[in-house]
């Protein structure tokens, strides 16, 4: 997989992605009523945008490659830093946890979870750091948002 990706230049990927988005938007747009130019329907504008995006995607893939090949090797290396799976996972997980726990447990556990899990994403944070951050943010949530700003979010709830 990795070797496959390295063979393709960034711009080819970028252009291909735009081509796909354009195609998807055009097809989806056409499924709504198109109307006529004198009385445009809801599908006309999105479909036109999708059709417009496709050639731009192709152009990015074609022209970008030439420009990319001129960039020096050193710059390419600099632009490809190490993957940070732990950080990425924790950032996404922290917000997902906020949604799930917020839905079933309330504001207090959700606030703690979002700061605690996100803090664990940094390799230099110890468990105690994450705990302190989580508690601090929970206090901010209750005092600033729930009490001062009257946020409509129950502190605790079940189910």
């Amino acid at each position, binding site marked *: 997989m990795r070797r496959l990706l390295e063979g393709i230049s960034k711009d080819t990927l970028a252009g291909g992605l735009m081509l796909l988005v354009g195609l998807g938007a055009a097809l989806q747009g056409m499924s709504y009523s198109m109307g006529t130019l004198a009385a445009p329907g809801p599908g006309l504008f999105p479909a036109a945008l999708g059709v417009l995006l496709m050639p731009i995607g192709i152009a990015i893939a074609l022209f970008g490659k030439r420009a990319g090949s001129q960039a020096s090797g050193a710059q390419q290396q600099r632009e490809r830093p190490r993957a940070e799976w732990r950080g990425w996972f924790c950032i996404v997980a922290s*917000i997902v946890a906020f949604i799930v726990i917020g839905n079933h447990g309330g504001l207090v556990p959700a606030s703690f979870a979002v700061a605690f899990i*996100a803090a664990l994403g940094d390799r230099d944070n110890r468990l105690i750091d994450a705990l302190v951050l989580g508690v601090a943010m929970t206090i901010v949530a209750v005092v600033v948002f729930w009490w001062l700003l009257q946020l*409509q979010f129950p502190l605790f709830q079940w189910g």
Partner: protein
Amino acid sequence: MEQSILDLLQGFGVALQPHNLMWSFVGVLIGNLIGVLPGMGALSAISMLLPLTYTMHAVPAILMLAGIFYGSQYGGAIGAILLNLPCHPPHAVTCLDGYPLTRKGKGGTALGVTMIASFFAASVGIIVMIFASPLLVKIAFKFGPPEIFAIMLLGLLAGGTMSRGSALKGVAMTIFGLLLGGVGTDVNSGVMRFTFGSPDLSDGIELVALALGFYGVTEFLRNVNRIDKVGDDTKLRMRDMRPTWAELKQSFWPMVRGTTVGTLFGAMPGTGPTITTFIAYALERRIAKDPERFGQGALEGVASPEAASHSKTQVDFIPTMSLGIPGDAVMALILGALLIHGIQPGPQLITEHEDLFWGLIASFWIGNVLLVLLNVPMIGVWVKLLRVPYRYLFPAALFFIAVGVYSTNNSLFQVGEVVVFGLIGALLVALDFPVSPILLGYVLGPMVEENFRRAMLLSRGSLSIFVDRPIALGFLIVGALLVVLQVVFALRASSTRRRVAKQTRLATPEIATATDD
């Protein structure tokens, strides 16, 4: 003109009401505070605090948001000069000479000059605003749907093609943004578009979720474990900030030239502040007798771009408020805020919401004075704030994002939108796409479509309406010129790319940031 001055006096009356003054002050303070923080620009500040203004009256709400805006601009310069961290992209240029000045022990002077330059430039920008806005209103009455569509198209083209990096990618992102703006119920027919069967999407994508996803979560994803400590042990005293007479004289003309550049570009919709500052810096270096000093700590290299960025900021409000065309992503957010408060930006805004418009202008001046007063004694505090480690900063910010988005509509679904857009943003940035045009397209999308459809109804389906109306035609011609120029530049650039690439690599030491425009 006399009328303008009378209106302005009335505006001061509005802005000086204790209630309004307080919110203006709160905005400036918070904006300044957030602007100093790394990776937190005006965009994240405004999108985070936008929900707080929902319950407020429109006038204080806009005054506060504008205060946040220029407060964070001021704050950004502090990080750029003292720590070589351009938290806000327009300040990338300020780093080039500001940080060398700090290392020479002249950081205080650089900050002092920045403050004077900003205040001067902002004042000029405000004066231009006062006299240009009524003129614009006169023209604006000739604006029907075809003209509005044409000028929006021009704004979109400018925003897309002038962003940093490839123009094609900028245009692609603009279209992507327009598509995102179309999500939800179509106002004309009631058809649900791109909702994928989810009722939560029928009201469209939430602006705050989109902005915080692209500018907050995307940046955290890119910077986690890559920045550890933000600040170092810079020492600074208050009296270091006063520049000497010679230094003032040295930076006076660069300040004037920077202001001119900023004012000219401010009136042009769609040109971001980053380009403006780069042009001001390039101009200064070109006309200098000894260009070698630049990059080694030349005061001119700080004064001119900072002046340009601040006058641009002020003048930028003209197209945003009177035509509904935001100059960049931040202005797009302010436009969104106006819409949320039920105020339709456009030619009628100045006549219909007189108190808001002139109050805003007056508050600019008051806000700028507040900023100077605030910053002089607080420099030491800012420096301390910069030493907060990134590993504490981003989890706390994620919490604020989650709660902030929830509070917008009391919807956890929209918190989920933040994650989705954060991931999409990270993917797009990794593929070298600029993300600012997405926001521009998202905000303008519904209006572009609406005006196009109205124009088509008026002309019974004939596209020639855009050519028959002189104003619309003019905008379309300018737009076409813009595209032609871009192609010419692209061809010329590809022949000299190797040389330029070498220079820019030396010249831009910056942290990973997604807020490029």
